[in-house]
């Protein structure tokens, strides 16, 4: 497979660490005007986790401020409001944490997340993230290719798909208890094996040079930058290789609105809203203008070949 590098990145364009660390100043400022209680506990548990710069970081766009990345999240296990995860996710304990890798592999096993992190070459991957709801961010993830983990467990020849599963722990995930739970649990997602093996597909363990906060899917989550955000499943406990297409939560929930592929595509609307444009978070406040959405979220040069000959409208 030929992976062409995008032509638009220069390492010099990546935001220097000093700039994004200004969030500390923001927090100090917020505390001094008595806002701290109203704001999520940003950075409460984050520890430094640097990653080497990667040529696959595909952007010359401004990074979304850390404050927005960590306070505006869809993580329904902690509530359906965008600010719920930042408010509620502190209750999640992320150590010890095992990721079970099984199914059609030669070497199934329970992998400790710290071992995964230690044995990986951590990279910084700056990716656009486009939510199916019509908003987007630019996030400097820290992680490693999912392919490294998959190669280590040696997929069998019959394996064609990879299924992922999020933690179920009602005691620590408030929306997993009580009446009127928003989704059936566990949250499940899936990729075709070639999508999972693609160099752009990573397991993220950090962002902005620090470990992931719980609301962003600690301790490890998937990031598939050319697909709508809900494909990038958070707080993963199980990775299973299968022969048939695995069920995915949103498609089960509403098959007319969400498909297995869910590639970002401005020409294929969500039945209830247009996908032609998006609002970039942290850019311009109230007066932010919508920007055009790009096919495959702008990663077409690298991933379009995965879908050669496929009807993207039928396989939404």
């Amino acid at each position, binding site marked *: 497979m030929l992976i062409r590098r995008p032509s638009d990145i220069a390492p010099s364009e990546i935001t220097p660490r000093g700039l994004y660390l200004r969030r500390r100043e923001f927090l100090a400022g917020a505390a001094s005007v008595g806002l701290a209680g109203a704001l999520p506990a940003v950075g409460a548990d984050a520890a430094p986790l640097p990653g080497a710069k990667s040529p696959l970081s595909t952007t010359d766009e401004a990074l*979304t401020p850390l*404050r*927005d990345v960590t*306070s*505006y999240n869809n993580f*329904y296990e902690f509530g*359906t409001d*965008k*600010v719920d995860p930042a408010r509620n996710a502190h209750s999640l304990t992320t150590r010890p944490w095992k990721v079970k890798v099984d199914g059609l592999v030669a070497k199934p096993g329970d992998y400790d997340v710290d071992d995964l992190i230690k044995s990986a070459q951590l990279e910084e991957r700056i990716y656009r993230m486009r939510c199916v*709801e019509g*908003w987007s*961010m630019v996030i400097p993830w820290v992680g490693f290719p999912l392919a490294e983990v998959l190669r280590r467990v040696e997929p069998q020849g019959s394996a064609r798909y990879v299924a992922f599963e999020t933690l179920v722990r009602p005691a620590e995930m408030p929306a997993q208890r009580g009446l*009127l739970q*928003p*989704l059936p649990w566990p949250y499940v997602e899936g990729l075709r094996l070639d999508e999972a093996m693609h160099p752009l597909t990573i397991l993220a363990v950090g962002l902005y040079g620090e470990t992931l906060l719980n609301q962003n899917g600690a301790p490890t989550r998937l990031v598939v930058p050319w697909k709508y955000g809900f494909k990038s499943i958070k707080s993963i406990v199980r990775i299973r290789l299968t022969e048939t297409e695995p069920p995915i939560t949103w498609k089960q*929930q509403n098959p007319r609105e969400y498909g297995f592929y869910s590639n970002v595509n401005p020409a294929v609307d969500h039945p*209830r*809203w*247009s996908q032609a444009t998006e*609002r970039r*978070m*942290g850019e311009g*406040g*109230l*007066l*932010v*203008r*919508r920007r055009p959405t790009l096919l495959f979220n702008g990663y077409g040069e690298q991933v379009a070949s995965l879908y050669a000959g496929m009807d993207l409208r039928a396989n939404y």
Partner: protein
Amino acid sequence: MLPAVWYFYLGVTDQLGADPQNTLERLLGLWALRFLVLALAITPLRRLGGPNLVRYRRAVGLLAFYYAALHLTVYLVLDKGLDLPTVWADIVKRPYITVGMLAFTILVPLAVTSNGPMIRRLGAPAWQRLHRLVYVAAAAAALHFVMLVKVWTAEPLIYAGLVAILLLFRLGVRLRKRRPRNRGPQPARAGT
């Protein structure tokens, strides 16, 4: 008008979170629905022996209209940048927007006629008939909310439930009025 002023202040000072447009749009819409529910609750409240708030009803109804207008303005100007072809496509293609626009459109003549001179000009019966359209507007507004969510959560269902109860109350009153009154138990007929 206080909530709106406060929200615009928060918006201008960048305190509405990562997606201030969306947050503002939603908050304004929510208040429009709240005022609609409140306006519809005034008559049942009085009939069920609660306080008589009828003299505030016009103000509450107008507030609902103002908030709906602000909600629509944020959508048209900030969100869509007055891109009218896109807006029109939204209205005809997206059922939840169609329903929302219907609710707002109905509120316009009601707001315009919510003053003494207009009541006199229309005459009380015609005015009252016109203003019964608020039932349709409230139902459409609640439906608009229910139709745009991704999963079932309590909030839109609670508002839809409140509107349903308030409309059913009117239906109940109407059905009871139609039935002849004071029909005591019929005397048993002598056998023939």
